[in-house]
């Protein structure tokens, strides 16, 4: 017995929309089964993981905080992935954005520098991320070096650069030799949207990125070019689209957005440079991009869902004493279910018995 796949000629939009819902339900059922195997109540787990965070204003706010960098980075990655370019080094671009933007914050520390500091920092963050993203793009277009590997290797390098800076030259001179920079001045701080809240203006940037991307992908020639480059590279070449230019452009965009996420987190949440400034946002965002099926609105929703699994996962540790690994396993299962559901929508799957031809 074996599978047989045939592309569906017509895919109804309803099915496309329902597929992720079905995937979620399946993922929850599988996770519930695992929890049951561990001798715990799946119902209680669902309540703690999902229902409680969604019915608690504090948790909803934290959801936005956590989803902000994920959405920003994933939106950027969607440009790359649409063009079939696999930038998995967003974590490094995030770090370099934070480093370059943070450099200005440290330079202006203790001076009377005014309101221009923060916008320039954000700009430097974008530039830093974009330039760092352009390294694998350049190596690919110029020398044909595989971008998956160079972008990934550069993540480790970026982390070591940051590590070196905060343990060495950028260490707070009054900080007893602890590996951290000075705390940023108010002029270098990205403020919360609501006084006393935790959601900073990075959330606004994420929202803008979603809107702009929706327009770019749906309404512009560049968006069409991306789709064509990804789906039919030869046709794109015949149409006169330079794949090199496209490669450079999408890496710059995704690197820039990752860099913006980096500097926003550092100036909005952490308030200083330190050896670790990301709990793996750049990698988690890859999951988010796929969960959101590279669609801007989908990515926004996916970022919120993934943020929910983190927050729910912490609650589950506290209230149910369920281990953290379960949350990670669940994220893997969820992503698999969404990918499978997508495939089921696109293809008709039949079981054929042996002897039905090769």
């Amino acid at each position: 017995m074996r599978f047989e796949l045939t592309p569906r000629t017509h895919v109804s939009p309803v099915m496309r929309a329902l597929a992720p819902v079905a995937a979620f339900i399946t993922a929850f059922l599988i996770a519930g089964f695992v929890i049951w195997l561990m001798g715990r109540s799946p119902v209680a787990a669902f309540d703690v993981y999902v229902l409680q965070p969604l019915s608690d204003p504090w948790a909803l706010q934290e959801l936005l905080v956590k989803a902000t960098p994920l959405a920003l980075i994933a939106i950027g990655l969607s440009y790359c992935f649409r063009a079939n370019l696999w930038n998995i080094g967003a974590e490094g671009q995030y770090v370099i954005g934070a480093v370059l933007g943070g450099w200005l914050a440290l330079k202006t520390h203790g001076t009377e520098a005014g309101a221009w500091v923060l916008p320039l920092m954000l700009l430097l963050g974008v530039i830093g991320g974009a330039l760092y993203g352009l390294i694998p793009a350049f190596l690919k277009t110029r020398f044909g070096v595989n971008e998956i590997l160079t972008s990934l290797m550069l993540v480790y390098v970026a982390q070591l650069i940051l590590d070196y800076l905060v343990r060495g030259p950028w260490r707070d001179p009054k900080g007893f030799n602890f590996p951290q920079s000075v705390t940023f001045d108010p002029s270098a701080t990205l403020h919360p949207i609501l006084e006393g809240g935790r959601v900073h203006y990075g959330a606004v940037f994420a929202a803008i990125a979603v809107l702009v991307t929706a327009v770019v992908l749906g309404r512009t020639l560049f968006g069409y070019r991306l789709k064509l480059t990804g789906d039919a590279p030869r046709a794109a070449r015949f149409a006169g689209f330079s794949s090199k230019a496209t490669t450079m452009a999408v890496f710059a965009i995704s690197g820039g957005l990752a860099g913006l996420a980096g500097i926003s987190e550092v100036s909005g949440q952490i308030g200083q440079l330190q050896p670790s400034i990301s709990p793996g946002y750049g990698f988690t965002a890859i999951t988010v991009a796929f969960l959101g099926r590279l669609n801007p609105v989908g990515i926004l929703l996916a970022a919120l869902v993934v943020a929910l699994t983190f927050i729910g996962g912490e609650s589950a540790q506290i209230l149910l004493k369920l281990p953290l690994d379960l949350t990670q396993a669940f994220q893997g299962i969820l992503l698999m279910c969404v990918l499978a559901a997508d495939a089921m929508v696109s293809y008709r799957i039949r079981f054929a018995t042996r002897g039905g031809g090769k």
Partner: protein
Amino acid sequence: MFSGKVYGALAGAAVLALSAGAAVAQPKDKVKVGFIYVGPVGDHGWSYQHDQGRQAIEKAFPGKVTTTFVESVPEADSERAIEQLARTGHDLIFTTSFGFMEPTLKVAKKYPNIKFEHATGFKRNPNLSTYAAKFHEGRYIIGQIAGKMTKSNTIGYVGAFPIPEVIAGINAFYLGAQSVNPNVKIKIVFANTWYDPAKEGDAAKALLDQGVDMLAQHTDSPAPIQAAEARGKFGFGQASDMERFAPKAQLTAIVDNWSDYYVARTKAVLDGTWKSEDTWGGINAHMVVMSPYKNMPDDVKKLAQETEAAIKSGSLNPFKCPIMGQDGKEIECKGKGALSDEQVLGMNFYVKGIEDKIPQ
């Protein structure tokens, strides 16, 4: 997770002194204690030992105390996890890594009725204590053992990162060795990780290949001491007793013992006597415990026990003045007859006799 756990109970850097206006504490019948760990509880090292302390609390107050932990909390994203504990009815919250300092302070200010304890930091609040342990006391003892027992006259040290805590440990280890063997040499390798067993093992092998026969480590996994065992050399356990991983090689281990402190602080909350304090305990406070001395001749064992007793009684300080820097010049002595706490906690120089440079 890079800066895992720098410690520092810097008396001079307290953000706020004890304030008289702190809420009057009431005795409690039941207490809920929460823990934030930087690593997985199964790391065999840092977080594992804190979790041993958590379990000790549960045993000490049956029926009165419930405990919770959140593991592998990334430092860059820890504020929410700490606040989650604060919001779920915990009365006492321990955050157990240096990187949790700012987030802990933020949450502590927001929840003035909850008691917080931050390990290895230096910022306090009326409801936020700090605590850390003087592991360098133990490192002086193992330095003496290594200095006595080395045949190649070269001892080795696998460090995590060149941060003050690790530098102070290396200096204490080397001073100990020098005190019994003036010509001993030390080789140092930084693994640039707190926790990557294979890489830590490689670092240890590199040292052993270069002629080291006594291996101290300041990374969390048992891989380095295992490497020593496999080569028939000797080593010292870190954070927890690693004898089962290297029964022939482990001479002793410097055990992080948080249990006594955690039980005492929980009791203080139960009794309503909890106050914001700064604790920096060593062998005397039972925060640093030497596991049984084994695999060594009796005279070395006797020396180690005497040194341990001397440190415990306060008659010996590993950083007693004069301390010479690498250039042979004396380091200014800011404490009473020894380097001051600030000097030890912010240490960024090697002592005379170490030929390496601090990588910066």
